[in-house]
C-alpha cells in the first residue's frame, strides 16, 4: 500500500488548478487521478498517460471466435457427414453464418474481459482509495506520494486550489 493524498473539489476548474499544481511536484506518470461520478474529458483535470490497449484484444477475440466457429462447423461436418447427392460435405454458406456468429461472440467476450481487466475491475487489494461523496457531485483528486515532504506539498497544493477535506490515506489508486 502507498500513501495517497485525497482532496475533494466542488468544481472542475478548481480541481484542474490543483491538478496543474500537482504537476509541479514531478510525481511519476499515473500518480495523479480523479474519482468522479461523471466521466471527465481526458486533460480536463488529469491526463491518462497510458493508451487504451484492449481494442487489440477485441480484434484478437474476433479471430479466435472465427477460428472456433470455423472449427466447430467443419468438425461437425467431418464427424457426422451428411452425404447428399451432388452436395459437398463441407457447405460454405452455413459455415460462414456460424463462423460469423461465433466470431462476434468472441469479440464481445474479449471486450468484456479485456475492458474489465484494463479497467482494473475484479481487483480487490486490501484497500482501494474511494470517496462516496463523489455521488453528491464532488470530484476527488488523488495523488500517490512518497515521503512526508511530497505529501505535505501535495496537500498544500490541493488546499491552495480550493480542495476541502484534504487528507492522507493508505491504499491503492
Amino acid at each position: 500500500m502507498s500513501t495517497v493524498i485525497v482532496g475533494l473539489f466542488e468544481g472542475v476548474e478548481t480541481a484542474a488548478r490543483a491538478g496543474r499544481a500537482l504537476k509541479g511536484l514531478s510525481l511519476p506518470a499515473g500518480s495523479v487521478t480523479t474519482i468522479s461520478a461523471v466521466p471527465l474529458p481526458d486533460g480536463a483535470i488529469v491526463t491518462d498517460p497510458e493508451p487504451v490497449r484492449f481494442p487489440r484484444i477485441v480484434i484478437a477475440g474476433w479471430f479466435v471466435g472465427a477460428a472456433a466457429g470455423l472449427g466447430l462447423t467443419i468438425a461437425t461436418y467431418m464427424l457426422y457427414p451428411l452425404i447428399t447427392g451432388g452436395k459437398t460435405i463441407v457447405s460454405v454458406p452455413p459455415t460462414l453464418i456460424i463462423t460469423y456468429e461465433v466470431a462476434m461472440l468472441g469479440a464481445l467476450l474479449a471486450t468484456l474481459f479485456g475492458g474489465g481487466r484494463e479497467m482494473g475491475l475484479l481487483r480487490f487489494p486490501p484497500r482501494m482509495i474511494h470517496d462516496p461523496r463523489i455521488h453528491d457531485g464532488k470530484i476527488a483528486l488523488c495523488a500517490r506520494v512518497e515521503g512526508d515532504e511530497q505529501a505535505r506539498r501535495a496537500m498544500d497544493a490541493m488546499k491552495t486550489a480550493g480542495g476541502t477535506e484534504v487528507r492522507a490515506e493508505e491504499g491503492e489508486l
Partner: protein
Amino acid sequence: MSAEAPRADDHHLARTDEAEMFERLSRSNLVTTWRWYLGVGVAGAVLLWGLIVFLYMAMVGMGVTGYNKPVFWGLYEASLVFWIGLSHSGTLISAILRLTHATWRAPVLRGAEAMTAFTLMVGGLIPIVHLGRNWRVYYALPYPSSRELWPNMRSPLMWDAMAITTYLLGSLTFLYVGMIPDLALLRDKSAGWRRKFYSALSLGFRGTHEQWRRYHVASTLFAILIIPIAVSVHSIVSWDFAMAKTPGWHSTIFAPYFVVGAIFSGIAGVVIVMAILRKAFRLESVLTPLHFDNLGKLLCTMTLLWGYFYFTEFLTVWYNRNPEEWEVFGSYGGHYLPLFLTMVICNFVIPFPMLCLKRVRRSISLILVPACSIVIGMYAERLLIVIPSLARRNDPFIWANYFPTWVEFSVMAGAAAMFVLLYMLFAKFFPIMAISDIKERLFHTTGRTIGGMTVESIAQVEGEGEAHA
C-alpha cells in the same frame, strides 16, 4: 495557507440536488408499493399456469395443441418471431443512439436494453417449448456423444440457436456493462445485504479517470459490435422460413423485411415500456414528451418502411401469379381476412396518420394508441407469415386450417407473464434509469443565450483531450 475562493465560472458536476435526483431516479429500487406486489403476484400466477400447461403438453404430447398436417408450426413459431422481433429495438436503438451521441438518449437506454434481454430470454425458450420432446433439447448442443448425434449445421434452426445465443449473451453483457457505474452508485448509497449485493456486481468500479476512459471505449465497442449481431439475428430468424421451399416463405426479401419488422415492433415496445415506467415510477421529469416525440418520429419512419417492404413483397407475387404462392396470398382475402385486415389497419392505417401529428407524438396517452396498435398488428403479421403458408401448401389435397387451442394460448400467456415478471424484478433490484448517463448529459449541458432566447447547448468530446462546445 488560505484556500482560494471558488470561481463563479467553476464547472460543477452537480447540476441539480443530487440527493433528490438519486431518489427520483432510483424510486423503483427504494420504494416498494402494493401495486408492485400485485403485479408480481399476477404475473407469477399466470407464469405458473403456463408452466403447468406446458408440463401437461410435454406429458401428453403435441396432440393437445392445434397443430395438424400440414400446419406443424403455429402460435409458438409466430410467437418466437414476435418476441425475437420485439427484442430488436432495445439494444439496437441504444447502440445507435450511443454511437450517434443522440443527446436525448440517456433516459431511454436502460429500459430499452432490459426489454431486449428479457424478450430474448422468453423468445429463446419458445423453440424448446415447440420441440415436442423437450427433454431432448440437449441434442442441439455440439458435443461428442456416443450416439454420434451431432447437430446439423446446415439447418437454419441451428443457425438460429447460435445467433440467439450470441445476441442474448451480447445483450446481457451490453446491459450489464452499461449498469456498472450505477451499480457502484447504489453500492455507495446502500447498506446491509444490498451493499454486499451491489459491491459484488459493481466489480470494484470507483470512477477513476482511467476507469471512465476505458469504460467509454468498451461501451462504444459493445455498441459497434451489437448492431451487426442484431441485424444478423433477425435475418437468420427469417431464414428459418426462407430456406424452405414453401410458398410465401421462399423469398430473398425476407431477411431485410424481417429486420425492418423487428425494429418496427421493437420501437413500439420501447414506447409502451417507457410509458409504463414513467407512470409507475413517477419519472415525468426524466422521460419527457421530447423522448416520446423522438421515438414517435422513428416509429413513423418505420411504419413507412414496413409498408414499403410489404408492398414490394406483395407486388412481385401478384405480378408473377405463381399459382402456389398466389393461393397463399389469396387466402388473405378468404379464411385469413380478419388477420390480414388486423395487420394492415394496426400496422399502417392507424399508426401512420397518427404519428404524423406532433400532438400525438408529444402526448403520452395518445402515442400509446399507435404503439399498442403496432404490437397487435405485428403479432398478426407473424401469424400471417407462419400459418397460411403451411395451411395452403403446394398440394391442395392436404390443405387445412389451424386454430390454436387453450394449451397454446396458456403457454404463450405464461411466456408474456415471464417477461413482465422478469422486468418487474429487474426494476426492483437494478437501476432502471441510466443514472450516470443522465448525470453525464446534465454535466455537458449549459444554457446558451442567442438573442432573446436561452437554448440548451451540449459540449461534445470528439477526441481524446479535445472538447468542443
